[in-house]
């Protein structure tokens, strides 16, 4: 009996020792790998900086390990730089083994490998990888789709606008990532967004109109004014929000009409937009709305009055029947 227990104890001790030895070996291997990487990075950093600054001529021949480290350092720089330095990174990567390897990894069996490749391609600044990234937007795994969306935005691939809007609306990509990618496409995407604003799907139209408000300018206001009459209330609300950013005096009459929209959240958005545009002509309607409409539009109207005419707001709040929203806005304004 005792002999058996001793044998079991010895087996446990031996297993524990073996585990400790294994852990020590693993730690040594990882530390050595980190050291090798740090050494390689020290070697290639001056080369990477010279490259982004357009110094030196032909890059020296590097070992494949150093090439991989250089690609990683340049990928990091790509996230931090714009302008000519960013363009030089794209020039460097065009047709390199690093791009070919990432494109190959986009078809890998393991999800993490595909996602990492999609992410890396965005940092390589080479727009020629767009078709592969667009295909990755349909990957079966969310992580890959998300990395592809982020990279399409970083690369400024305007043709990706519709697939990105669809991914945003269907939630196949987290809305923050898809939205950021679309905003990163910038004003160059406006013509494409104008086309998307005619899409048969209301949610897609609404997203396009919202994005036009973020990346467009006053020349796009007539489109948003037309969208105020869209059959979909979501599109009408998006149009009012967009006009609060890019609308001018011409947007005020249609926004005043939208104060009578049958849906309260459209009325609220129109009131907020008129406040943002400092529309004096809308004051009587906004004051009436602040007194009589339901909670959300009445509150938006009172806040709009506060932006347009703080003195009139203070006077209106003292009148009988002013209601809670005018009081609240006046109190906040007095603080």
């Amino acid at each position, binding site marked *: 009996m005792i002999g058996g227990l001793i044998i079991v104890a010895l087996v446990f001790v031996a297993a524990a020792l073996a585990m400790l030895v294994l852990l020590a070996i693993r730690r040594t291997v990882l530390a050595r790998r980190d050291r090798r990487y740090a050494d390689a990075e020290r070697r290639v950093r001056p080369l990477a900086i010279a490259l982004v*600054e357009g110094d030196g001529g032909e890059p020296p021949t590097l070992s494949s390990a150093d090439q991989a480290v250089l690609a990683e350092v340049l990928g*990091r*720089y790509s996230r*931090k730089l714009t*302008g*000519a*330095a*960013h363009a030089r990174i794209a020039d460097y990567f065009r047709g390199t083994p690093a791009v070919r390897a990432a494109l190959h990894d986009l078809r890998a069996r393991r999800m993490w490998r595909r996602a990492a490749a999609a992410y890396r391609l965005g940092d390589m600044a080479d727009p020629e990888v767009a078709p592969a990234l667009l295909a990755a937007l349909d990957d079966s795994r969310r992580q890959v789709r998300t990395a592809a969306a982020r990279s399409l935005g970083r690369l400024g691939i305007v043709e990706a606008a519709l697939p990105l809007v669809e991914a945003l609306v269907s939630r196949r990509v987290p809305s923050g990532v898809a939205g950021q990618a679309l905003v990163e496409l910038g004003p160059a995407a406006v013509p494409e967004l104008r086309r998307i604003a005619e899409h048969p799907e209301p949610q897609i139209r609404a997203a396009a109109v919202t994005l036009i408000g973020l990346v467009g300018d006053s020349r796009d206001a007539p489109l948003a004014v037309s969208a105020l009459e869209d059959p979909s209330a979501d599109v009408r609300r998006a149009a009012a929000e967009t006009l609060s950013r890019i609308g001018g005096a011409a947007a005020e009459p249609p926004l005043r009409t939208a104060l009578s929209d049958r849906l309260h959240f459209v009325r609220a958005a129109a009131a907020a937009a008129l406040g943002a545009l400092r529309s004096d002509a809308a004051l009587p309607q906004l004051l009436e709305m602040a007194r009589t409409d339901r909670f959300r539009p009445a509150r938006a109207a009172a806040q709009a009055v506060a932006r347009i005419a703080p003195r009139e707001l203070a006077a209106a709040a003292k009148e009988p029947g002013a209601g809670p929203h005018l009081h609240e806005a006046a109190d906040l304004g007095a603080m």
Partner: protein
Amino acid sequence: MTEPGAERDRPVVLAADDDEDILELVAFRLERSGYTVLQARDGEEALELARAEKPDLAVLDVMMPKLDGFELTRRLRAEEATSKMPIILLTARAQDTDVDRGFESGADDYLRKPFSPQELSTRVQAILGRR
């Protein structure tokens, strides 16, 4: 290191950022443009360097350990020796309110990350050229 107050061959710029890549890219570009660059990796180190070396201009990150760029700018403005030193904030915080906050704290210019080293160098040159 440059002797404080001594005649300098090259204007001295203090660059402060906790991101080693940014610091290196900024330093490389500014040195190539003819400046001597002092590097700091956090707000406190930057404050000490500014007091000791009295640089001609500072390029400061906003989100830094120990002392953020807004507070650092305020402290530099409050000290006589550095109160007139031009300051450029270089930051990923790109909201308009952040830009306002930067100018309120006393910054002379604001550059958003990701940034163009060329643009940074042009702005440094423009500010130092005006003095």
